[in-house]
């Protein structure tokens, strides 16, 4: 569809109407930071946010998710697939790229119906970044803007104080945008302003400067297995898993059975897990195949720059910078790590 222009007031009126009719998750203030949450009114929607605490991945791979319900005595499992349509409002381009990568992971080989059902029920409204976060480096990873990305339903770009450009790319998105009253076709000046926003974001969303093309990461890592950086950085690691928890492309999980009070029925649940946690690679009997901090630390960067790439062709770091901010020990900056590998091996 063509690009349309909508005043913020009209956008708000549409959001207020939409939240009455279906589930909408949008970015809102949470104490002094921002988070995706159920949206009840347009006034709470903060499209000017810098970065959310957790990525919107949580709507496709929730922190806790029921996979099946069981009866202990009958020994029967009944599958549970979340089947509620929803709109995800205000996803930044780098987070959308992460969702696209997870789509590939959960579709390949044994497709994961739990993830894919949630995903199919989602209409994703991407919004261009208005406020760069303190550690974002999306521009270094090619994820600063969504214009070249496939799969989003709607793209919102603030082109003037109270004016947005809106574009739909899918049938679902077109239907959604069609509900907005008071839009008009974008003129050449509007499109120029939108391009200016993209140019600005490709310029400013690099608070850290990666001194290489991300496409070269798999090769770089292939020759960096014994680099001293893994030991050096990991020496300070608390193995807390914060970098895993905030990462939009981390998807490792654990499964646990939760029994109800009747001690008969319950739920088999899936939870986020993290490869930085000490016992992640431990087997029954206690042998730990990645018992050392450096081995776990290296594994995480290899997941981002090589192992996932070997599976799907994607570089699994989108430059959101959350791990940098979340790390207590200040050792989780991927840009620092990758630049360091470059220095020593070039």
């Amino acid at each position: 569809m063509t690009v349309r222009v909508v005043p913020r007031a009209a956008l708000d009126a549409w959001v207020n109407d939409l939240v009455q009719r279906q589930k909408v998750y949008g970015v809102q203030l949470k104490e002094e930071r921002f988070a995706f949450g159920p949206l009840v009114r347009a006034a709470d929607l903060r499209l000017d946010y810098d970065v959310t605490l957790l990525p919107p991945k949580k709507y496709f791979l929730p922190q806790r998710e029921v996979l099946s319900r069981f009866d202990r005595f009958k020994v029967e499992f009944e599958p549970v697939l979340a089947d509620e349509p929803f709109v995800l409002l205000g996803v930044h381009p780098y987070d959308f790229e992460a969702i696209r990568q997870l789509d590939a992971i959960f579709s390949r080989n044994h497709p994961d119906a739990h993830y894919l059902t949630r995903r199919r029920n989602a209409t994703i409204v991407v919004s261009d970044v208005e406020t760069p976060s303190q550690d974002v480096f999306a521009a270094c990873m090619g994820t600063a803007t969504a214009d070249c990305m496939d799969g989003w339903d709607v793209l919102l770009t603030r082109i003037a104080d109270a004016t947005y450009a809106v574009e739909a790319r899918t049938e679902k998105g077109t239907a959604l945008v069609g509900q907005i009253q008071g839009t008009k076709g974008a003129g050449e000046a509007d499109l120029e302003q939108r391009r200016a926003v993209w140019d600005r974001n490709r310029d400013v969303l690099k608070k850290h400067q990666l001194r290489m093309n991300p496409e070269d990461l798999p090769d770089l890592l292939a020759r960096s297995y014994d680099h001293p950086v893994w030991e050096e950085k990991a020496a300070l690691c608390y193995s807390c898993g914060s970098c895993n928890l905030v990462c939009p492309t981390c998807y490792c999980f654990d499964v646990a059975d939760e029994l109800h009070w009747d001690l008969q029925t319950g739920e088999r649940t899936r939870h986020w897990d993290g490869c930085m946690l000490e016992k992640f690679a431990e087997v029954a009997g206690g042998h730990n195949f990645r018992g050392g901090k450096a081995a776990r630390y290296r594994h995480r960067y290899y997941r981002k720059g090589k192992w996932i790439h070997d599976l799907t062709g994607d570089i699994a770091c989108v430059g959101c910078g959350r791990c940098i901010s979340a790390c207590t020990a200040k050792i989780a900056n991927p840009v620092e790590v990758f630049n360091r590998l470059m220095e020593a091996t070039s």
Partner: protein
Amino acid sequence: MSEATVQNRAPAGADAPRSIYLPEPATLVDVRPMTKQEKFFRFQMARAEGMKYMPGQFAEISLPGIGECPISISSSPTRNGDGSFEMVIRSAGAVTAALHRLSPGDRVGVRGPFGTHFPVEDEFRGKDLVFICGGIGLVPVRSAIHYVLDQRDDYRKITVLFGARSPEERLFIGELYDLKTRKDVFFQETVDVADPTWGGNVGVITTLMPQLRLEADRTVVIICGPPIMYKFVLLELRKLQVANRNIYVSLERHMKCGVGKCGHCQINGLYACQDGPVFRYADISSVREAI
């Protein structure tokens, strides 16, 4: 339902695939104690076609309310005409301890089989086979041993080396005796630490290897045992000039999901649950976390 809600529904025809995490019902038909830690189990799937698998594969066994764990299949498909399958389970955690408390007739959930298998119909055919098993490493390999014994003419010389930590930890004692007495199998075993009942070899499994007389170019070696065992056995095999492409290893990891998603069993870029657990050693000799 509003128009927008309807439009946001998953498009018709895009049927979500079945949940890959849903266990299927099975019944425990036989259970016997083996050692202090291990019990022998035979399960029968509720589905009519039973369990279809190859030697070396594993399945996920579930007890609702307790959990699920990956267990290697120990029986050979050549002997499961009724579709049942056997496992040897060490009581090591919550699920396996609960499995030890089951009685015949009790039900469990099963997913699988998963993973790669020993190439009993391909690379093994027409070759001398050397099985080197330590402790419960015998459990998945037993499936392949039975398989090749049941089609004995398809293979040449068969050698089985087995090592246990102590005499009381030896598994399948009756079957070990059968292997020892068979004319068409060369069998040797050892224990790390003897007790007064033991009159056989004492020492780690590699102490049995110097007596092997291999024709390296027509020999395939199969290794399965505790993590520490592999590198020492591989060193001995190098002395015997067995090529890496003629060595198969079955590796232990925590194959939590079985479908290459959860990340727990990852060995560098490989998933033990999908790319393994049976690997040709030549394919993983440069994978740093593997051995």
